[in-house]
Each structure stands twice: as structure tokens, then as C-alpha cells.
């Protein structure tokens, strides 16, 4: 196995162009497990940990541009104020050791439907910046995933960054796991309330890809008492939960049944909407 370790971003893109079969390696929390379990034997590994700009985040044109190599631990520590949903999701990833190593870009690269970073990115309408020697493109995260562990990423492309609007209002993330920590999501849900009257959603681990719940978003946008900031009608929260559950297409697997996933999504959607609305009105 060849091990490529480019020192700069330009070198990394050149290396990927020259070796499209090289598997990018960031924190290694997915790739190394697959190698150790002998599930994968790539001809080459492309180590991205030396590229400095991947580890940086900054504000750019009103968006937060988070380098693909920023770890979950740093998202929690440095972005919790402006992206509380994403930070909360980062908090539920693995153990402290995994959060120190694992990166948002790696999460997207693996494109697992269970990736904890995905639902908050969906709920906030984030963009994924992909780069190759051919150029740069930005893809809405909702269009990034194409199937289980599949994305629009081309063989010669690398994930450069994620661009996320700073939270305009309350954000929530909640995740179901059978264990109280260090667990892969059985189902997860992210929510964003925008004070101007719209709602973003993201569903994890309950479909072939991370999903949005467009009908639930439209329903909440229409039914929430935005102007009055009045009390949330429990029936609205309940209906919102039903619509989120209906948007999912879960399966039975070793971690949970489809029926359980659907049920819990409904509950999480109802609860997180209730919390977010009371935060908005506080």
C-alpha cells in the first residue's frame, strides 16, 4: 500500500488527480477501522493531516467556512456559540479520543447515513466545497449524498470545507443510541428555527442517506405562531413529529427496527421543536 502525505493543498489535489484510487485519510476513525478489520485494502492512502488550511475555520461572506480537517472536539470548543446544533452533534460522536481525531470532512467523505455531522448540516442548509485540479465547486449538502456511503464526490476530488450560515436562531440536535454514550446513531434529528419564519430539518440513520423532512419544514413554517411568538400548540408539535417520522425511510438492522426509528424520530422532532420554540420566545 502506498502512503501519500502531501504537505500542501495543491500537492494534495495533484496527488488525488494522479492517484484517483487513493483513499483520503484525515482522523482515520473510519478508514483505520476498515483497514484493521480487513474490509478494505486500498492501493494508496492519501494522508491529509499535513495540509494546514484543512485544519482552519474562518468567516467568509457571512458564512462559517470550516476546513474539512477540523475535529469534532474543536467544533465543540470553538463553534458552540455560533453553530450550537453542529456542536451538539459533535458532542455525541464517539469518545473524547475519537472526537479529538475525527473530522467533519471525514464524516462527509464516509457519507454514512448514520454520520452525526450530517443532520445539522442539512438543517442549516450548509454547502460542501469540493476541489480538484480541475477547479472548485460548492454543493448543497442535501445534494451531496447519493446513497449509503455514496456521494457526488468524484474520484479526483477532495472535500475542502463546509460552509455553514451562523445560527440565525435556535438549533437542536438529538440522537438515539441504545447506550448512554459512545454509540452509533439508531436515529438522529437536527432542527433549526429561523426567526424570519422558516425551519430546517435533518434526519440521520433512518434512510439510505441523511434526509430532510420538507413537508415537516413547510408545515412548521406555516403553523408556528411566528408573529405572536405565542405558545406552541402541542398538536402542532405532534403533527410536526408525525411529518418528520413520515419523511424517514428506515430499515430493520442490527441496531434497531424501522418501527422504532420512525417512532423515536417523531418524539425527537416534537421535543426539539418544543425546546427550540421556547428558546426563540424566551
Amino acid at each position, binding site marked *: 500500500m502506498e502512503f501519500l502525505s502531501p504537505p500542501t493543498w495543491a500537492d494534495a489535489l495533484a496527488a488525488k488527480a494522479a492517484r484517483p484510487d487513493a483513499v483520503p485519510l484525515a482522523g482515520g476513525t473510519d478508514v483505520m*477501522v476498515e483497514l*484493521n*478489520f*480487513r474490509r478494505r485494502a486500498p492501493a494508496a492512502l492519501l494522508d491529509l493531516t499535513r495540509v494546514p488550511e484543512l485544519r482552519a475555520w474562518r468567516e467568509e461572506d457571512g458564512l462559517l467556512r470550516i476546513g474539512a480537517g477540523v475535529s469534532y472536539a474543536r467544533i465543540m470548543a470553538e463553534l458552540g456559540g455560533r453553530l450550537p446544533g453542529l456542536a*451538539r452533534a459533535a*458532542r*455525541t460522536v464517539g469518545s473524547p479520543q475519537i472526537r479529538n481525531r475525527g473530522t467533519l470532512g471525514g464524516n462527509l467523505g464516509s457519507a454514512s447515513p448514520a454520520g452525526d455531522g450530517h443532520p445539522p448540516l442539512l438543517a442549516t442548509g450548509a454547502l460542501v466545497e469540493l476541489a480538484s485540479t480541475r477547479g472548485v465547486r460548492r454543493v448543497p449538502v442535501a445534494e451531496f449524498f447519493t446513497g449509503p456511503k455514496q456521494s457526488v464526490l468524484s474520484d479526483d476530488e477532495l472535500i475542502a470545507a463546509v460552509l455553514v450560515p451562523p445560527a440565525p436562531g435556535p438549533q*437542536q*440536535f*438529538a*440522537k*438515539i*443510541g*441504545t*447506550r*448512554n*454514550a*459512545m*454509540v*452509533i446513531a*439508531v436515529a438522529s434529528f437536527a432542527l433549526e428555527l429561523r426567526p424570519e419564519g422558516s425551519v430546517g430539518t435533518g434526519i440521520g440513520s433512518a434512510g439510505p442517506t441523511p434526509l430532510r423532512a420538507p413537508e415537516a419544514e413547510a408545515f412548521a413554517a406555516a403553523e408556528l405562531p411566528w408573529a405572536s411568538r405565542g405558545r406552541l400548540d402541542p398538536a402542532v408539535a405532534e403533527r410536526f413529529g408525525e411529518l418528520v417520522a413520515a419523511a424517514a425511510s428506515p430499515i430493520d438492522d*442490527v*441496531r*434497531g*427496527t424501522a*418501527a*422504532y426509528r*420512525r*417512532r*423515536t424520530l417523531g*418524539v*425527537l422532532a416534537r*421535543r426539539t421543536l418544543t*425546546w427550540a420554540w421556547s428558546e426563540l420566545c424566551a
Partner: protein
Amino acid sequence: MKAHLGLAAGVGAGVGASPQRPDGRLKVTGEFAFSSDLWAEQMVWGATLRSPHPRARIVSVNLGPALAIAGVRAVLTHEDVPGRKRYGLEHADQPVLAFDEVRYQGEAIAIVAADHPETAARAAEAIEVVYEVLDPVTDPEAAVLADSPRVHAERPNLLRHVPIRRGAPDVSAPVVVSGVYDVGMQDQAFLGPESGLAVPADDGGVDLYVATQWLHVDRDQVAESLGLPPEKVRFTLAGVGGAFGGREDLSMQIHACLLALRTGRPVKMVYGREESFFGHVHRHPARLWYEHGADEDGRLVYVKARILLDGGAYASSSPAVAANAATLGIGPYDVPNVTMDAEVVYSNNPPCGAMRGFGAVQACFAYESQMDRLAEAVGLDPVEVRVRNALKVGDLMPTGQVVEGAAPVEQLLRLVQRRPAPGPADLLPGGTANTTRGEGVVRGVGYGIGIKNVGFSEGFDDYSTARVRLELVGGRPAVLVHTAAAEVGQGLVTVLAQIARTELAVAQVTIAPADTSVGSAGSSSASRQTYVTGGATKAACEAVRERLLARLGRPGLRLEDEQVVDDDGRPVASIADVLGGEAVEETVEWRHKPTHPLDPVTGQGDAHVQYAFAAHRATVDVDVELGLVRVVEIATAQDVGKAVNPRAVEGQIQGGTAQGLGLALLEEIQVVDGRVRNPSFTDYLLPTIMDMPPMALDILELADPDAPYGLRGVGEPPTISSTPAVVAAIRAATGAALTRVPVRPEHITGTA
């Protein structure tokens, strides 16, 4: 090999103290050498080819592609096993390497030695096996029937049936509760995977450094299969990363030795985590049918029960597990009429054998669930109904054995019952995943009490051997304790040194590495090592002391603080002076009182040497909408006879309770059609520190007059009753029936 370090502890660090573990610091700092860290000059690596099918006929095996890979030094199959081609703890029914047929997914077929572990793994994958896939026998209820296809052509699937008959078989009672319960397949999930290093010796024999539980029984099985006399197969215990029963059977021992003898090189084998799930036996999954009859006051009139254990493809210790399930299967209760049938069957599921609790765990989940049903049926508090039926000293077990020593069943229950209720939890169900702010959260409390035998039963010649040497080292007296007992993490090396200090009044005690150059210590299982190897060490120390004092030629002397003192405690001489240049050494083989077989028809007999009891009260918060559980607190009470090392006792109770909590909520090897679906720690979930709550401990020391220092085995009881206590608490919170463990969120929310 690094010898265990001598303890930096004074003479006072004897029985009843809690000196620091000699291996504790090394383990916490990551410096301890586990068996997977072994290394030798010229070493090559072993790998194993395993069956992907739970049941198939082996049509052909082509080793050519593996042998063609550069760096491969040997590829072996069953044809290369020079001695006995099968091994096993109770029946030699498991092939060293499969021939004719594979009987479970993961069964070893061929082994490879190569210069690099990656090469060895690739070579194993390159071996071409043609299988004729057969329908696996996977349903124990079907397998037990006479017309079922056989897992082993030459014998029926029913591996053992243990009946127990006490009192009248057809008695009736005014109150009857019945239930069917299921226990999933738990794994020992030790952290150090199977590993060892085999080194070929000049005499044609082999030395094996390995993580195991019982060096001598390993050695004897390996020698049989190698076709070597036992003295040419020498075992040394390497650093063991947990065992819990999962190392009682052989894994890579014979394989590594075969490869070492073939290649003439030291051979190291280390299983990966996934392979480890296929490399050792698991806890028996079980289905249990129970009927309890009682009078209106909740006093038991009869228990009728059937326990069906799935033994998987090979026998392992299944027959003994079935006997435990049967003899302990009504729990610590006095029941005049018992009809119990425990059966264990072969199937093409993963082989099952020893795991902490050993048959008592499955039964306890069922009988304690029944006691709760009985409490409800007669309108009694769950503790009250248990107390009314509590076993006492002098009562008869269903086997007719009289309960002796101590049986503080009522006292243990009252202790946990009277503990103050825990306050609000620091962490809600869902943990850090932000699933509730209190919505849907309901608290519940549940109780469980269990019974376990200590030591080996049914007439087994259960003994241990200790060699103790007292000599001057640097002018000061020092003790060397040498046994073959496996330190598996439980702290036996600490305890043996404490015993030596107490008996010989010497500060400096060294525990020699465990190996087969001293006699057998028996297994580090059945909660027996402190009792039996502790007993042997005590006896050997006494023999040394007697010889030392005999040198002074007068009666009434004893040892105190490295001195010989007279009856009045006045120093007579220092131990150093009495010793001079002449060491004193004694080797003692020590036995507990004998046990007896069970009558094969009635199940009557004094089968067990000692009983141990623990009670648990679990308090849980359940998010009833999401089915998520957070255990808030566990209170426990256990009689340990004598806490030889109080801190180690607490550790055993905490760890055992956690393992029982794991079975209640998380831990299950999921097997579908004979295939394991979750062989990883990603999907085989162990409790984390966020899942394990604070515990309140009451430790009783009611001496057993037959045991050294009055001690009672402590390792297993905490695992047994924590499971039903946690489940009872969830039932109390939710009202769900919950007849299966682990309880899944789906069972609580009705979405299974």
C-alpha cells in the same frame, strides 16, 4: 517475560488489608505486557482460516495459492495434527482443525505461518475451500427433538439433561404464576484478544506463553494433540487482559504450537477483535419455562421449570453449565416440591461454555422475574415475598443438599431495601445525546437476589498446588510463592502475597510467574481461586512455618513482624537468623471438602462445596416514549465470608454488577441463521461509565468454617442478580412484561 514485581508493602499488608496491586500501576499507565505484546527473535506470525458457513461439508481444500505467497512458511490442516485431532474440556468433540464438516461460522479449518502478520492473513484468505453448504440446525427447541437433523452424526443433539426431583411431582397450589423467559447470547468481551507465543524447544517440545485461565488443562489438551508427552509441552502464563470464562477453552494454543514445531521458529498468534468473537465460547442463550405455585400468603408450594440452553456446535463446559442451571435454578428459596429439567443441546450456533455466573445467570433472570409476578399475584411487596421464602441455614436445596455455613438471604434483601432511595439523577436516559429534558421519564425500582456455587462441583477433584519458599534475600527474609494459578485481572497475585505475609510475617513477597513447572492450580473460574489456591498457599506457608519453627526445637512459638516470638510475644530470634543460609521450601496440594455427583434420575446429591449470595436493588429512569434507560443507582449486599482484600472485593462487586447490567440492557451477540451479525465493539455494546451508576455496597463477612479465613468466593454473585434487578426496575417504570434480556428499547416502546 517480566516477573510480577514484589509488593512495596509492609508485613501488615496481609489478609484483610488492601495493598496496591503489583500490576496496577503498569496497567493503568499502559506499560503492562499483555500476551499480545510478546516478541521473540526470529518470530513468525500465525493466522487462521475460518469457515464462513455455520454448517457445510468440506468438499476440498487447496493450499496451493497460500503456499505460493512469498514469506509463507507453513500452511497446515487437520492432516498435520500428529496426535488427537479433537479437543474439549469435558468431551473431546471439537476438531483442532475442521475435517469433513464445519459446524459453526468461524470454525478453524487451516492455519498459516508467515514472516509478517499481513502476509499470514492474506495467505489464509488465499486458501481455496470448496463447501457443500448444509442447512444449519439453529433452533434449540427443534434441535432437542428426536427427529432433528444431528449436529454430530454419531450422537444425539441432547448433550445433557439434568433432572431434579424433590417432594411431590403433582402438587397443586391456590396461586399459580407462570412465564417463559429468554436470555440472549452474552459475550465475555475481554479486552485482550486471544494471543500467545509458541517457541520450539531443543528437546523436540514446545514452550507456550499464553493468556489463559487454566495452564494445566490447556497443556494436557495441547500435548494430546501434538502427540507429545505433557512434560515436553511447557506453559507460562502471559499477561491476561480479562477472561470471565472465555479462556477456559483452547483458542490458538494448539495452532501456534503446531506452527512452531513445523517451522522451527517462534510463532505468535494474535486474534483481532472480530476474530475474537469467533475465537471463544459465549454465554449460553436460554429459554426458560417456569411455573410457581404458592399459597395465598406467597409461600412457595412448588416450582416446575424447564431450562433449555443452546450449547452451539461443541460441548465445551455445557454439561456443567446445565447442572448449575438445574441445581441453582429455583434460586435462594426454600421450596418443598421441585420438578426441574435443564437441557443443553448441540446446534450450529456459536459454541457456548463458561462465562461468569455459569448457568446461574440465565436461571436467576427467570426465577426472579417469577418472584415479582408472584408478589403481584398475592399483593405483596417484592422484597416481602422473597423474604417469606428465603433459604436459611439448615434448609434443603432441591438436590437434598443441606445449606451450611451462612445463608443470609433475608438479611441481604433487607440491607438493599433499607438503603436510602437515590435522589434525582445527574444524567437522564439518552445520556449526552440530548433526547429529553425530563419528558417521558419515569423512575422504577426493582430487586433481585441470586445464588451461586463456589468451586467445581459434582465430585470433581478440585485442588490447587502452591510452592512456597522462604529464604534470605539481601540479608532479609523473603517469600517466593509459586503457583500455576492464572491472574486474569481479578487480583489473585495481590491476595496470594497477602496470605504469605499473614502466615509468615514477612514483608517481602514475590509471586513467581505462573507456569506448568509447578502442579495444577485448577482454573481461574467458579469464583474459586482465592479459596482454593489461596488455601493451598496458606497450607504451604503453614508447612514452611512449621519447619522453620522446628529449627528452634521448642513449642509455643509463632511469627510476628519478621521475628519469632514466644507465647507472650517476646522476641526469640529474627526470622533471618533462624533461616541463615538455608531456605525452607514446601509444596502443598490442597483440596476443599469433596463434592458428590447428582443422581441422574432424581438430581439428588451434595454436588456443591459452597454457596454464595448477593442481592441487588436497581433504581432506573426510563424514557418511556423512547425506550431509553439510565440506571440511576444500584445498591447491593453480598456475603463474602471474609474480605481478604476489601478493595478487590469492591472491585469484583462493581465489575460483576456492571456485567449483569450489560446483560440486562445491552450485551448480546445477535445470531441469525447461525451467523453472528455484530462481531465488533461498534455493535456489541458494553456499558460505558455513562451507563454504570454509582453503587451502594454492603459487604457481610459471615465466616464459612470450612474455607480458608472463612472466605466465600466473590467473583460471580454480583453478575447474577443485577440483571433481574435492573429489568424489574424497568418493569416497575413501564409496566412492560419484558421477558427477554437484553431489554431493547423496542421492547419498552412496543416497536420490536
